[in-house]
């Protein structure tokens, strides 16, 4: 594995994360619980799709096979996607959408703050840009976690269920495989094990303030770094890639 090949795959993983969660959030367009939330969730989706474009464009340029960011998004199948499993989990009710966003945005904030120091200039530049936006996402999800957790009996119950349901997908954030280790050695990748404690402490504090219980350590579902996904990803791709698959090279 050369540094170039590894960086391509690394950029691809990051791009897949924001693409798949961005797509999930875009599904809420016109379906938000209130108008302001419709705007908020779709704004977050837009930020994520924008980040995807930057990351996949970079991945395509490293790969050097004259592919575009669109080719990477629309022409890969499920087992060639490397997003974290939590990104593909369904929106379910508003509590699930918020819990997913809380776990992800706190992770992303810590992750991109580290990646900003990367020796890879493009990844560092994209990180500096992304961090500013992720802070807004984080603030939004913390606000809602507090409001729903410390809200009515019904909102509390649903928020707790959402936190419990999604907890098993958070272990994956802090896994390092050979590729991560290789790039960490070259000062390009982030050592995700180093941000685990901070993530846990931030999430615990937020959940406690929201009168919610932090789930006990239990089984963690993983697999995305090998391209192994939950059944949800296939459904997302079948919708997201429909047009390119039905009408290859369609332009408008």
């Amino acid at each position: 594995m050369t540094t170039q090949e590894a960086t391509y795959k690394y950029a691809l993983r990051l791009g897949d994360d924001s693409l798949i969660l961005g797509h999930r959030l875009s599904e809420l367009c016109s379906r938000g619980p209130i108008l302001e939330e419709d705007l908020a969730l779709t704004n977050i989706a837009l930020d994520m799709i924008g980040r995807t474009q930057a990351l996949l464009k970079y991945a395509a340029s490293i790969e050097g096979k004259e592919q575009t960011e669109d080719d990477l998004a629309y022409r890969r199948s499920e087992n060639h996607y490397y997003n974290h499993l939590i990104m593909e989990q369904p929106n379910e009710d508003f509590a699930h959408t918020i819990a997913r966003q809380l776990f992800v945005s706190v992770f992303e904030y810590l992750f991109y703050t580290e990646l900003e120091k990367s020796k890879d200039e493009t990844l560092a530049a994209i990180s500096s840009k992304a961090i500013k936006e992720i802070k807004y996402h984080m603030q939004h999800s913390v606000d809602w976690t507090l409001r729903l957790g410390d809200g009515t009996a019904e909102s509390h119950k649903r928020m707790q269920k959402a936190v419990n349901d999604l907890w098993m997908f958070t272990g994956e954030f802090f896994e390092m495989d050979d590729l991560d280790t290789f790039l960490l050695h070259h000062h390009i990748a982030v050592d995700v094990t180093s941000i685990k404690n901070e993530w846990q402490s931030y999430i615990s504090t937020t959940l406690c303030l929201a009168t919610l219980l932090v789930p006990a350590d239990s089984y963690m579902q993983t697999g995305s770094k090998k391209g192994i996904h939950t059944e949800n990803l296939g459904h997302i791709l079948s919708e997201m890639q429909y047009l390119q698959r039905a009408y290859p090279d369609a332009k408008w």
Partner: protein
Amino acid sequence: MVASQQNIESVYNLISGIPDPEIPVLTIKDLGILRGVELVNGEYIITITPTYIACPAMGLIEDQIKEILLAHGIQKVKVILTYTPVWTTDWLTQDAKIKLKNYGIAPPNHSSCSKLFSTFEMVVCPRCNSKHTELISRFGSTACKALYKCKDCKEIFDLFKCH
């Protein structure tokens, strides 16, 4: 050398007045989107930076730059998108802030980027100048705006977020 410097300046002046598609009272120069013009081997290199990473106006701005320069007989143009240095509302000129306010958008006070969980402090209603305002939503009609309400004149208005 002097001639090429003049050419660069005239190219800059030709394109600096391009309005932002979403906030047409501001130009790409006012907003700090236009970062610079260079002349390399007879080709003009124009560098632009997005306000937000997903700014959907970038493609349009690139087309407009090429169109204007083509209309002035300049064909060899390359538009480059850069992310560094990272765009900030600190680049908005005082003049741009006045234009924003007159347009009905509360201008950003300062950069709040360094802080986590800072609230937007002291947002003044662009219509009646009241400081008695309330946040409705951190997210507004475009990525760069938040939605506010004035408790005095009761009008809803956009705040250009500190970024």
